[in-house]
């Protein structure tokens, strides 16, 4: 597997569609422990990405170009806590892939690492605080481990997505200590974090993009 600018663009479009479908569900999660806008925010940002991709001008046709375009669009359209956090994640990933035309497995993991580290640094959060990092950190760890074990790109991303999904679920019993949910104290326990949920969605969309492009290639190779 190697991810080109087209693949990243396909990922953004797939994620945008799924976020739009999940808009109400994500917002409901945020109503329980936040202010009821996370689905709306994510949908606004990713819809803007798709609209700008459609309307052009097209971003620079490199992984860096597409990811930077996505990061900037998120920063300037999402708002809230998630806008700067996800925006920074994309911008850091973009920077990590600078000069790369097709990201291989190791480069992809490095980009994910840059994103997660950037988000953690901006949000000053660590794992266990009931935020998107509870999906992103396990995802990064799974990806690193799979890479070290010599797995191919598709299964690395599949592992990351699965870990993110497990991580999102694991936020349910957590007490929030960052973001809006922390205002609730004990009342934040028993609800799944909306940002962790959207992070899992993004990583699942990335894995699906990688595997769907993997399959026809494999078929052709047989």
């Amino acid at each position, binding site marked *: 597997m190697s991810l080109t600018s087209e693949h990243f663009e396909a990922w953004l479009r797939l994620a945008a569609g799924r976020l739009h479908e999940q808009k109400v569900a994500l*917002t409901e999660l945020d*109503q329980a422990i*936040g*202010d*009821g*806008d996370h689905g*709306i*925010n994510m949908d*606004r940002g990713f819809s803007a990405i798709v609209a700008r991709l459609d309307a052009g001008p097209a971003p620079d046709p490199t992984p860096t170009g597409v990811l930077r375009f996505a990061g900037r669009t998120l*920063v*300037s*359209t*999402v*708002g*809230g*806590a*998630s*806008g*700067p*956090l996800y*925006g920074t994640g994309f911008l850091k990933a973009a920077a990590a892939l600078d000069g790369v035309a097709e990201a291989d497995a190791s480069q992809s993991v490095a980009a994910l690492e840059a994103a997660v580290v950037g988000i953690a640094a*901006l*949000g000053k959060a660590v794992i266990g605080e009931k935020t998107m990092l509870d999906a992103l950190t396990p995802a990064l760890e799974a990806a690193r481990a799979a890479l070290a074990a010599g797995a191919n790109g598709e299964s690395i991303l599949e592992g990351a997505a699965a870990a993110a999904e497990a991580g999102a679920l694991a936020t349910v019993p957590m*007490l929030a*200590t*960052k*973001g*809006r949910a*922390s*205002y*609730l*104290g004990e*009342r934040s326990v028993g609800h799944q974090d909306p940002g962790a949920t959207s992070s899992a969605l993004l990583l699942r969309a990335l894995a699906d993009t990688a595997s769907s492009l993997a399959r026809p290639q494999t078929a052709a190779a047989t």
Partner: protein
Amino acid sequence: MKKLINNVDDLVTEALQGMEVAHGDLLRIDYSNSVVIRKDAPRRGKVGLVSGGGSGHEPLHGGFVGLGMLDAACPGAVFTSPVPDQMEAATRAVDGGAGVLHIVKNYTGDVLNFQMAAELVAGEIEVATVVTNDDVAVQDSLYTAGRRGVGATVLVEKIAGGCAEVGGSLKDVTDIAVKVNGNARSMGMALTSAIVPAAGTPTFELADDEMEIGIGIHGEPGRRREKLAPVDDIAEMLVGPILSDLELKSGDQVLAFVNGMGGTPLLELYVAFNSVAKILKGKSITISRSLVGNYITSLEMAGFSVTLLRLDDQLTNLWDSPVHTPALRWGA
């Protein structure tokens, strides 16, 4: 959901258009960036004051743009922090060469977006930032995102704005903003939730005999749910933590601010103000300035918050200094 809107996506823009027609003598709108700008900004040599936050808290912040208060306000989507582009545009629009103060309510989203905006103008415009965090309902500890910025934000904007208007330097204006925030504490309660227009359903549900104590201003649930009580008792629940956190004592002078959350009639706000006044009188704390009304709201939420600001002569004089904005006006 019953709202006076055309469609949800145009809500904020149309409200800005309405503000521009109603208050064209005070402000102008930069529609491409969604920024409310004081009509005569930038003023050469004057420190610029920029605030912003999600919409749904009106009159905060747009209604406080004008002489003696803000130079620009950046409204985000309802209950969603504005984006850095807005604060960047606002900062550039009001910079008169003396630097710009960002007044930021302490929410992760607001803090991060303002921070990114400050980075965008770094090296070009001197920016100072004051983060308001007056809500005693939230513990200021490692286990939270810190106390929220609520009612004190209105007082910071007025008093720091007064300081800037009479020629205070960026340091002066920042110091006074920090002082106001440090001497003010707030706590709020809700009788009902609010409906974010894009969500269409109430953020939380309260039974007919319940109230939420310790709410913020984003329709979010509060610290705890209680049985509805007489407003005298509710006032005790709100004022008690403020008094002890501020360590107010007999003989102190305060500005007492009873703020409506948006859906509570003024008649009831005056009753609530009276409850607060009785408590303060019992502790020999003097209310030397008052503010009663809807100033930092949470859409149509019913409820109120109490903010107390310890006053000295400097703060009192700056509070009394001329202000002319859509929502606060005196002396001008």
